[in-house]
């Protein structure tokens, strides 16, 4: 075999390995998340993956995620039942319980809050819970700015949201001209 042919063959193998790595990474990212169809994703992965070492590694990740699954199932059951009730007191109660659980990720809690808003985007009560949660748990000013802005867009009469929004804009060094450029800020100023 000529040298060039050998190099070509090696390049083909390397390219295939690189492509396999992309797919494997996607499976790995997904299997590290406690999602409803995690078992089926694992089955799909095991059928696809020919490399036993990689299988072992990803199975370990899956097992870790699997341990978290019961708590997520419980959260989903509790949250969905409260949403189905359509009763704001039940929703508030389930949100209070879920948001106080310590060993789940912040992103999951935000997901639950966003899904509450999905059920009713203009609920002042849910926005109050969301803003309160953001105050105590999110420490990135640009993120807070966006949450307050959304809350204020929806519930523009809430002076508490407006003050929080103005404070975070101040921290983010927003120019006064920019501040006054939006209609809802003009209304606030008036």
């Amino acid at each position, binding site marked *: 075999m000529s040298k060039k042919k050998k190099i070509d063959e090696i390049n083909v193998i390397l390219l295939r*390995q690189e*492509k*396999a790595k*992309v*797919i494997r990474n*996607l*499976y790995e*990212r*997904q299997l590290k*998340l*406690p*999602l*409803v*169809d995690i078992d*089926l*994703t694992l089955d*799909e992965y095991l059928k*696809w*993956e*020919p490399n036993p070492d990689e299988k072992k590694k990803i199975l370990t990740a899956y097992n870790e995620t699997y341990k978290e699954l019961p708590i*997520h199932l419980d*959260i*989903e059951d509790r949250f969905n039942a409260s949403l189905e009730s*359509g009763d*704001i007191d039940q*929703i508030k109660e389930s949100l209070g319980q879920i948001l106080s659980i310590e060993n789940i*990720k*912040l*992103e*999951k809690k*935000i*997901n639950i809050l*966003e*899904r509450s*808003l*999905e059920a*009713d*985007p*203009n*609920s*002042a*009560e*849910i*926005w109050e819970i969301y803003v309160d949660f953001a105050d105590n748990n999110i420490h*990135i000013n*640009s*993120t807070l700015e*966006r*949450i307050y802005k*959304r809350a204020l*867009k*929806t*519930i*523009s*009469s*809430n002076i508490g949201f407006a003050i929080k929004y103005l404070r975070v804009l101040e921290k983010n060094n927003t120019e006064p001209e920019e501040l006054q450029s*939006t*209609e*809802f800020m003009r*209304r606030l100023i008036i």
Partner: protein
Amino acid sequence: MDPQNTENLEIENEGKQQEHEIEEEEPEDSQGQVIEEEDEVIDGTYQENGNGGQEILALEAEFRTTHDADLARRLIEIYRDADDIANLRRVRETFLEHNLLLEGREFGSKMRIIFSKEDWLQWLQDEITFAKTDEEKKAMLKLFDRALEETLCNTMNDFSKSKLFWADFDVAKLAAKYVKGLFTNGTVRKNGVTLTLNKLINHFCFDFNRGSKFFKRLRKFELEYNDNPNE
């Protein structure tokens, strides 16, 4: 244009769907547009449609003062009927800027909603229809980004980059279909698709029921585009 267009997107509530089947991609045409039912063609003036110029001027004047959502939607319907994209954009931008509720309200009560997900889906669908050149089609991806940032609900991710995203799932599905269509007709490269789908993964990956959706879509795309490297 048919005001019910958004209903033709076959957007079902997949949030409750728990099956793990390989999903069927909705068809796209050769222009990268999502195929929908044939629009009703209205080739007329505002007058022929019963919306005289005077009436539009009056609506516009009132809208400028009140920024009322119902007025905005009436104007949007008039301009949609006339395929008047410039005025559609102007009214929608103004509507979006002023989408205020004057007061909060009780959970579940029927009050006028702000610029809603349905408004966004209609806007996106209209712009898809009007986007003819590659430039315009690429610009659509920016509009999808805006829509994903503005629409309420679902999950977010990426605190590491100091960003908080929230997005509507139906808008996200439309974005995924659209970018795949752009790839099929050669408007965007593979990286454009993977970038968009990765963004959507980040939007939704913490959603228990829907989190897998865009992982599957991206894997399917990678396998289709690359051939299966393990075969």
